């Protein structure tokens, strides 16, 4: 129950863009000689023996960035249908969307001043 014919180009693009990396890996896998020895399989650590675990401790600042990202991402998803119907809506709706963005700018300024966006 869907209108497939509108999406011909999309499906063609999707199939081709999925096929290209698969093809690239297959061809290089067939053409090269893969030999596994223990030295090759160990991870690189500037020439010395690898010590400790590869996973670092997770710091809170990574989470702060993800949080701010998610809130503004959801805001963007709400702005998308407004943008799609912008030409048939009037000036009043433009003001409404402006208020929407303004309230979220207040949030962004709060995040900035409270140091949620500090990287160092």
């Amino acid at each position, binding site marked *: *129950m869907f*209108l497939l014919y509108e999406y011909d180009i999309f499906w063609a693009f999707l199939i081709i863009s999925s096929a290209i990396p698969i093809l690239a890996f297959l061809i290089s896998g067939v053409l090269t000689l893969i030999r596994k020895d223990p030295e090759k399989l160990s991870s690189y650590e500037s020439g010395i023996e690898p010590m400790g675990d590869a996973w670092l401790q997770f710091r809170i600042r990574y*989470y702060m960035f993800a949080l*701010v990202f*998610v809130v503004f991402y959801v805001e963007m998803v709400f702005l998308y249908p407004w943008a799609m*119907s912008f030409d048939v809506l009037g000036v009043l709706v433009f003001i*409404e969307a402006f208020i929407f963005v303004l309230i979220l700018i207040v949030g962004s300024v709060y995040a900035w001043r409270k140091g949620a966006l500090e990287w160092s």
Partner: protein
Amino acid sequence: MDLPGPIHDFLLVFLGSGLILGGLGVVLLTNPIYSTFSLGLVLVCISLFYILSNSHFVVAAQLLIYVGAINVVILFAVMFINGSEYYKDFNLLTIGMALLRWFVQIIWTTRSNQIIEQDLISNSQQIGIHLATDFFLPFEFISIILLVALIGAIAVARQ
């Protein structure tokens, strides 16, 4: 404009099997980060199911919100778990194959008989118009909810 039958069936089987595999992966994988990625697969399959209902904006919105926002937040929450505390052994549970086949049969034989007409304005434009006129006040309240969520989460995470 009726549905091309084989394409509907193919998408159904493909997404359904992806969904089931992803669900099994979420539950049975030992590393919680692998489970989170498997959850991402489940959410992608769910969102692609909406193609079969001719609602393309919902596909995009589900992908953006669920995979892009919710799954990312879940992933970051899972990152706080220490690596040494994972569940080590892999229990392969027995799955009721008859139950599975029954579900697949139900979904397979359920399809509507309607003839689809194409609207003059697309789905996302209709949603935009309704959001800006009928639901203008909820639209503004959404911004306040997002603001409250942002401030609350930053206040909690700073401690």
